[in-house]
């Protein structure tokens, strides 16, 4: 069961999309999982053949539980995949099989289904977790990470060292919390209550653990909006860009120069994110919110960002987000100005270290070159983790966002 956000402790397996014997490849959707917040499609990042489904539909299991095993293909695996296979094959095989990939070994040779944690399969371990592993004598290759991008945290190591759950890839480690039954029908009210609880727990943790600091900057949007209106004249209704797309792109490009804002604080250390994956805060119509990742936003054109956000919003509301979108965001952007407020002092989404907020774009008196004029102005705010950065860096980040918005043609 992958961690689909820091606020998730367990998930209900609603549906399997594969059965034993099915061939799977990177990015295939293999299962539908219900977190308390939403139904999420779980992707697989291994290539091979499904060996065994270990968790029945309808069962609720804790994060980290192995859902299924997949037998790797003997041929045609990419280097990244074989690296993973090697890492995990270090788990005690029943006999030292010379060619484990082909050997008809029982469970030992089958690889645990590493669901959708990350595109990058190298072992991610926080320094603290590495130290703990040395002290406790835990083999890191046997530990399944519950941190962002599948990172192994100190807590994971400690869990792995305790005898009761020492063997994460055996079936014994997969106790179903609920008896396998028909997938429970989640009522909207129950979903609401669960979502409030999940948001509440995560935000309380954020406020308890993260020493936030807040900065704000008013940005003249006249150039950006003028450019946008011109660009939209040439675009079909379907392809038109929204101002929020400019804001997202500006944040993505600015954060490339401020890597200390893009990543995670785990076990007392900062881990830079692999890529710029913007968490886009989307409010759900029934209440609550979700912030799935817009992957590699710094590499995308405005049109691609627009299409990406549109797709995310539609799927967030339909309850069809993917597991990688839930676990990957490296920094969150919230555009609460849509609802009319002037500015937002955000609460950081742990274990991320920064959140950028935008208020409403409003016409305001604005002095330029000794003259007073009326300009559309947006207030950009930054909430950042003081453990990872200082106000000096945060201030630079906001001015970089402003700089990006002054040259919209390059966004």
């Amino acid at each position, binding site marked *: 069961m992958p961690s689909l956000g820091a606020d998730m402790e367990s998930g209900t397996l609603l549906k399997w999309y594969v059965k034993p014997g099915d061939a799977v490849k990177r990015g295939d959707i293999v299962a539908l999982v219900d977190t308390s917040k939403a139904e999420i499609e779980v992707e697989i990042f291994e290539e091979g053949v499904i060996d065994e489904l270990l968790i029945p539909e309808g069962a609720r299991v804790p994060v980290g539980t192995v859902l299924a095993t997949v037998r790797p293909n003997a041929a045609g695996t990419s280097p990244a995949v074989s690296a993973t296979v090697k890492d995990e094959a270090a788990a005690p095989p029943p006999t030292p099989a010379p060619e484990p990939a082909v050997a008809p070994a029982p469970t030992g040779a089958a690889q645990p289904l590493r669901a959708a944690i990350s595109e990058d399969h190298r072992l991610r371990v926080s320094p603290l977790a590495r130290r703990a592993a040395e002290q406790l004598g835990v083999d890191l290759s046997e530990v399944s990470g519950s941190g962002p991008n599948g990172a192994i945290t100190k807590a994971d190591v400690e869990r792995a060292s305790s005898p009761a759950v020492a063997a994460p890839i055996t079936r014994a480690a997969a106790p179903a919390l609920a008896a396998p039954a028909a997938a429970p029908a989640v009522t909207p009210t129950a979903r609401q209550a669960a979502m409030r609880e999940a948001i509440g727990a995560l935000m309380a943790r954020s406020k308890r653990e993260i020493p936030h600091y807040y900065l704000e900057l008013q940005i003249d949007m006249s150039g950006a909006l003028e450019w946008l209106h011109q660009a939209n004249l040439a675009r079909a209704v379907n392809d038109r860009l929204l101002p*929020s797309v400019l804001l997202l792109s500006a944040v993505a490009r600015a954060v490339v120069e401020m890597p200390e804002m893009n990543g995670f604080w785990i076990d007392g250390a900062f881990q830079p994110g692999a890529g710029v994956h913007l968490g886009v805060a989307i409010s759900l119509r029934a209440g609550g919110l979700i912030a799935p990742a817009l992957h590699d936003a710094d590499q995308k054109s405005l049109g691609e960002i627009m299409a990406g956000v549109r797709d995310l919003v539609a799927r967030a509301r339909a309850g069809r987000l993917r597991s990688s979108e839930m676990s990957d965001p490296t920094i969150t952007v919230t555009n609460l100005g849509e609802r009319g407020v002037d500015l937002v002092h955000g609460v950081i989404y742990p274990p991320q270290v920064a959140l950028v907020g935008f208020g409403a774009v409003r016409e305001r008196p604005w002095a330029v070159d000794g003259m007073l004029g009326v300009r559309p102005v947006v207030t950009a705010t930054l909430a950042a983790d003081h453990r990872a950065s200082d106000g000096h860096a945060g201030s630079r980040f906001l001015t970089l966002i402003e700089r990006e918005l002054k040259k919209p043609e390059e966004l």
Partner: protein
Amino acid sequence: MNEQQLRGVVTGALTEVAPETDPGAIDPDRDLTEQLDIDSMDFLNVIVAINEQTGIEIPERDYPKLSTLNNAVAYLAAAQKQGAGA
């Protein structure tokens, strides 16, 4: 399309983005974004849906003219007439 049909197109597009909306309960003179709690992405989707069903291209600068249900229907009726006359 007559006015009744245009009204149907607009309310249809609105209930698409705000599924819990009772079409009969929309106040035709109240601001739609505020009344139905829809954001700019939702509004754009409404414009796209109207375009798909009526063929009417609504330029961005005219978005404010579709702020209420009655405004929107009047705007579309006029745009349609203009299109037919041209």
